[in-house]
């Protein structure tokens, strides 16, 4: 007999692990997670900059992101039994030109409309909040309820906790296709021929989700984008805020460990033609990132970089993810296209996916993120 579960989750990243955890917490006994690589959190979940922020997001994302920050992140370390290093000390999005400030103001105004506490601040206030920043900065948007966490610990925390609650994890389990039986999605077929059967199947496999759901006639309009990040040696404690720029040339924060983690790109990443299972860094990114970071945080010029890495982003056509049951393939739930900002929302998304799998009402309305929103213009 094929291994059978109430819910099969494809993708052992943070969304998959979080969904598994909330399902187990809800008492679902039989949950299977299939991870294609050998390691949990091999993709973007462990490669991102750790931002847990609301500011700067599309308004369609704000309801569930805000829910997560209000209700899930604060107690997550206790709940999972590992320190996810959640720090809610605000997010500064920095600007050096009037044009930057205009851009930031538009984002802030939109967010304010849905109830987010975010405002524009001037040079002096920026310096008060963070004295290490460059004098070239003329203003910023400031969201005091934003923050950051440790993506490595959060991902593995959900994994470890759900594993201890009985969730079955398989690594090296590369999915080839999905198969309907009698009109409902039922089977998950691996490349080695193994078949798993489930009542519900959640696909949360990043860009690869596209190849998987295509086998049941569903497509998500995504592109893939390669992004790089770096980490410095341990530094004395400097500042707790999450930083970003209007120019989007870097983002990052100081971790509890003392090292700084920054994500950044050099502009050449758009055209990368590397296969998805390769994540080789390109030589121009690190220098370019360093120049960008130094331009905003001159105090870090002597901080030594110990490592840099890259990862694939699943960029959705309209910049926000698909988090949605797929009506035409009963039993299928899709969560992909996170467009490079899926980490901060992961606990909420995990909870919502669990609710979708159990056909409960979700904690917030998710209709703006449906899979079938991409209608032709004409």
């Amino acid at each position, binding site marked *: 007999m094929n291994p059978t579960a109430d819910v099969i989750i494809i993708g052992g990243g943070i969304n998959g692990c979080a969904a598994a955890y909330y399902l187990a917490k809800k008492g679902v006994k039989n949950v299977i997670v299939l991870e294609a690589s050998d390691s949990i959190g091999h993709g973007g979940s462990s490669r991102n900059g750790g931002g847990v922020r609301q500011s700067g997001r599309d308004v369609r994302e704000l309801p569930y992101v805000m829910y997560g920050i209000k209700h899930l992140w604060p107690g997550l370390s206790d709940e999972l039994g590992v320190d996810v290093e959640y720090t809610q000390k605000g997010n500064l999005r920095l600007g050096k030109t009037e044009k930057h400030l205009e851009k930031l103001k538009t984002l802030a105004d939109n967010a304010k409309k849905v109830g987010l506490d975010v405002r524009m601040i001037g040079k002096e206030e920026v310096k008060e909040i963070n004295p290490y920043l460059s004098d070239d900065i003329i203003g910023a948007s400031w969201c005091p309820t934003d923050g950051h966490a440790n993506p490595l610990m959060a991902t593995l925390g959900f994994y470890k906790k759900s594993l201890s609650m009985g969730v079955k994890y398989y690594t090296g389990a590369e999915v080839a296709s999905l198969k309907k039986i009698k009109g409902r999605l039922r089977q998950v077929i691996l490349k080695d021929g193994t078949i798993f059967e489930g009542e519900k199947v959640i696909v949360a496999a990043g860009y690869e989700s596209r190849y998987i759901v295509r086998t049941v006639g569903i497509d998500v309009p995504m592109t893939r984008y390669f992004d790089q990040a770096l980490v410095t*040696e*341990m*530094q*004395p404690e400097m500042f707790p805020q999450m930083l970003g720029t209007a120019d989007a040339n870097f983002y990052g924060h100081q971790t509890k460990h*003392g090292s700084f983690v920054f994500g950044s790109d050099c502009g050449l990443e758009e055209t990368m033609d590397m296969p998805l299972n390769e994540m080789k860094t390109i030589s121009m990114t690190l220098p370019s990132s360093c120049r960008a970071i130094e331009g905003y945080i001159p105090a870090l010029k*002597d901080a*030594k970089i110990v490592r840099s890495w890259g990862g694939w982003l699943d960029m959705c056509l309209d910049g926000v993810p698909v988090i949605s049951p797929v009506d035409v393939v009963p039993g299928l739930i899709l969560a992909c296209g996170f467009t490079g900002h899926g980490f901060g929302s992961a606990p909420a998304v995990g909870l919502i996916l669990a609710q979708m799998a159990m056909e409960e009402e979700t904690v917030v309305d998710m209709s703006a993120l449906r899979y079938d929103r991409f209608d032709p213009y004409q």
Partner: protein
Amino acid sequence: MKRIKNHPILGETPERKVVHFTFDGKDMTGYEGEPIAAALKAAGVMVHRYTAKRHEPRGIFCAIGRCTDCVMIVNGKPNIRTCITPLEEGTDVKTQYGVSAERNQ
């Protein structure tokens, strides 16, 4: 004395230029261009730093710049690999506590 003056195979150690440096504020001498770690070793200094977490002493381990155990604060900058950083006149070397020059970390 830790300096090898004469060696059965390598012969007499060539004369080198003496330079002055400070270790935790104390005046010391060494040879120009030799690794800071060699000058400290010759002076009998064993402890280069105390670790961040367990506050344990560390010194030279690999001596070729790989293990990073011998790092110290050199001219104000922390985490400098002393085994491959050449000594110069006036180099200021400090014991490193965690990543700082302050003991009470």
